[in-house]
């Protein structure tokens, strides 16, 4: 039904385009045109499609909730909770669609009939309203075509609005992220105190699982302490940085200051391949090759090493991050003005002295910015940790034990079927919003530092 309606609107828009263009040619015989003939077509087509499609979209968004309120009105006197009402509504819908398998009460049957009736009314109303709008807007547009009004400006203004709405897309995504995270997280914090979440040192959400009814609040208090996860996240990011910063920075310096054109041309893209490899592939590599390797070496030295160690995950993550630091610092160092180098050479400094004492300090803000971006990347990295560093949230500073991170716990909690309304599921969203805040914070600082740095030398 909806598909037919949309196709009809679009077909009508196409026809009106051709009709408008033809009309313009007719007008041309008697008077001067105000725009190219195709603009007459565009004008009609836009007036035909845009209002009808907008109304259609609004209708589709609001219709279900309006129907729902009408149906659930009959149940207001029964003192039901929100969840029970939701359940009833789902049952009614299933019954109306003929897929309901439970036992059918009179009340449900009545509601289902009412639902079908309402849906029918809504459908015919929708078709009627959209047809009316089509007729109205088309006749309005046709009148101004006939009057030979200016045609190009309105079309261009319309296009500009389309462009503007598209640019709101990115904002919408951000709003979507913030609200979807906040919505669930707030419900989580109604069940678990925010204080317990931020400062609790014990993360074990599985134990709050109760088949029926509410979990024990005493248990909840002790199960959602996120400190081990925050610590694990930053610990693994720290290990990654220990690998990535020296290698990335030194290769960035070498590429920008020492390497000849030939080496630079080939080495830079090859190193950047490291950033293009999907993270799940790194995860597999870490779990299958690096983990056992670290364990073997550790055992040979007489250390107790678990097969899934923070060290393996962190080291592999560090390798992944090398190209971020190397190419960003390469860019930053190349941006340092040549006269600083020339000044230093003129004083008799060697190349490495120039790098260490002049260029590095000058480029420091940019380098710090790129490192912060890399940290934010490491904090948000998921698959490597899920596959290589174990899933138990230990509060430990031993790189040879397994630790878990925020991202890994989100995956662990949400893999498989989720039940919304369960504090365990909601806790994933609470973790998500803390992750979002941390990375946002790092990014904003990094971007502003880099921006300031650029402005300084431009």
């Amino acid at each position: 039904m909806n598909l037919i309606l949309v196709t009809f609107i679009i077909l009508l828009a196409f026809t009106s385009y051709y009709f408008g263009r033809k009309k313009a040619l007719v007008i041309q015989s008697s008077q001067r045109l105000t725009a190219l003939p195709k603009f007459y077509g565009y004008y009609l087509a836009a007036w035909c499609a845009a209002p009808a499609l907008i109304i259609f979209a609004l209708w589709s968004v609001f219709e279900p909730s309006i129907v729902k309120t009408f149906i659930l009105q009959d149940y207001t006197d029964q003192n039901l909770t929100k969840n029970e009402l939701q359940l009833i509504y789902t049952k009614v819908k299933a019954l109306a669609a003929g897929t309901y398998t439970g036992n059918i009460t009179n009340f449900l049957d009545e509601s289902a009939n009412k639902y079908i009736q309402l849906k029918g009314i809504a459908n015919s109303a929708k078709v009627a309203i959209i047809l009316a709008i089509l007729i109205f807007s088309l006749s309005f547009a046709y009148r101004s075509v006939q009057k030979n009004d200016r045609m190009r400006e309105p079309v261009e203004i319309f296009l500009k609005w389309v462009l503007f709405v598209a640019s709101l897309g990115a904002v919408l995504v951000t709003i979507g992220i913030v609200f979807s995270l906040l919505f669930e997280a707030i419900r989580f914090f109604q069940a678990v105190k925010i204080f317990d979440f931020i400062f609790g040192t014990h993360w074990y959400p599985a134990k709050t699982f109760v088949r029926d009814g509410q979990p024990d609040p005493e248990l909840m208090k002790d199960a959602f302490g996120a400190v081990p996860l925050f610590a694990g996240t930053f610990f693994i990011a720290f290990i990654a940085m220990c690998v990535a910063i020296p290698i990335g920075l030194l290769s960035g310096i070498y590429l920008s200051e020492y390497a000849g054109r030939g080496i630079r041309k080939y080495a830079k893209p090859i190193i950047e391949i490291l950033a293009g490899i999907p993270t799940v592939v790194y995860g597999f590599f870490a779990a299958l090759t690096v983990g056992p390797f670290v364990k073997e070496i550790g055992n040979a030295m007489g250390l107790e090493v678990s097969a899934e160690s923070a060290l393996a995950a962190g080291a592999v993550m560090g390798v992944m991050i090398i190209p971020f630091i190397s190419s960003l610092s390469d860019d930053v160092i190349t941006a340092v003005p040549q006269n600083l180098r020339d000044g230093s050479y003129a004083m008799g400094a060697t190349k490495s002295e120039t790098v260490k004492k002049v260029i590095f300090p000058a480029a420091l803000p940019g380098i710090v910015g790129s490192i912060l971006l890399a940290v934010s990347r490491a904090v948000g990295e998921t698959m490597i940790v899920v596959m290589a560093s174990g899933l138990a949230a230990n509060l430990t500073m031993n790189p040879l034990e397994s630790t878990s991170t925020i991202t890994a716990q989100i995956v662990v909690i949400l893999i498989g079927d989720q039940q919304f309304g369960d504090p365990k599921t909601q806790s994933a969203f609470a973790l998500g919003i803390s992750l979002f805040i941390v990375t946002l914070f790092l990014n904003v600082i990094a971007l502003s530092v880099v921006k300031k740095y650029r402005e300084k030398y431009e």
Partner: protein
Amino acid sequence: MNNFKKNFLKKRYNAERRFQWYGKIAIGLALTFLAVFMFQIFSKGYSAFQKTWIVTEVHYDKELLLIDAESPSKDDLENADYYDVAYKAMTSLDLGLPEEEDRQLIQMVSYKYETEVKDLLLKNPDFLGKIVPIKLTASDDIDQVHKGNYPRDIPEKNRRVNDYQLQIYDMLNERGDILSEFNISFFTNPDSREAELAGIASSFMGTVFSILVCLAFSFPVAVLAAIYLEEFAPKNKFTDFIEVNINNLAAVPSIVFGLLGLGVLLAVFNLPRSTPLVGGITLSLMTLPTIIIAARASLKAVPPSIREAALAMGASNMQTTMHHTVPLSMPGTLSGTIIGLAQALGETAPLILIGMVAFVNTIPGTPVDPAASLPVQIYIWSESAERGFVEKVSACIMVLLAFLILMNLAAQIVRHKFEKKWS
């Protein structure tokens, strides 16, 4: 004094050389990681492109097949009982050892061997009543033994292949009845719990559908947004805000987009779970900022003289943009889009959250059928304990990397072939 100066200089030159070496070592390390990594994947994965078959003889005995008709129709063959025929074909391989070992012979081929026996007859109905040679898919363990990935010297208790099976295997191998051929079924089979039957067809189609959905959603919106921001947006607080927003969105961890997909697409809009449609939309939200940034950069690269010439000829702003600036910026935009899609192609975490990690043993035909994707398939298989899956994972990684390399090459070609150089 002179000596002191000499020493001092020497020290400084040594420091210089050392520093250069640090840089070389750093680059060397990065390249070594890449090389080790590639070597590991290829050395583990190449054998998955070979499939092991066991050749035996099958007697399509009418009596055992329970076919009564004189000249059986296709339906008769379809409904015949192949259990005994297939069972006999396998157990005829024994070395005259006691009856109890039959089960172990059966375990040497995949559990679908009965279907394979059936399919051969359906393809060649004139085999009925004859004794013909047949190729059966070897079980995962025999496959690994044949490829030499399986240690044979550990005690029998710890082995999944026992001495009896090894004995039979050696005998067959000597007779030349173990075949190794290119593994077509790896590309045409959907996922399976049995390593020897598992293929990437379902996840490959899932990936293709997700990427197409992602392209359909992100490309138009991103290009339009980039045109607005670069060509029409007034310089004010609001457009600044949009810009900051896009830059930050590009750095949000991918798993947060997965939470968005779960919390909004699945919970609010009730889109079907585990499908490439939802996966594609989730990925498109992620690629949106990447494409916007690339498109803006390539719009910026179009020299102002083009715009000025068009405006001087009396074109309106919109005409200048749509007829001149945007077409000229397309190569850069397209190559940025391909790179954004390549990033989306490798994403795993958001797809896991929206349920594309479910076990799917059918090949999806539309974007609203449940499916996995290649990276998720890698994750699923790598969690599996069976030895046969290790090489499958590596092979799947090779396919994924090949896919990525192709896309990046395409991006390069689009950029270099079609981009105008402004001098």
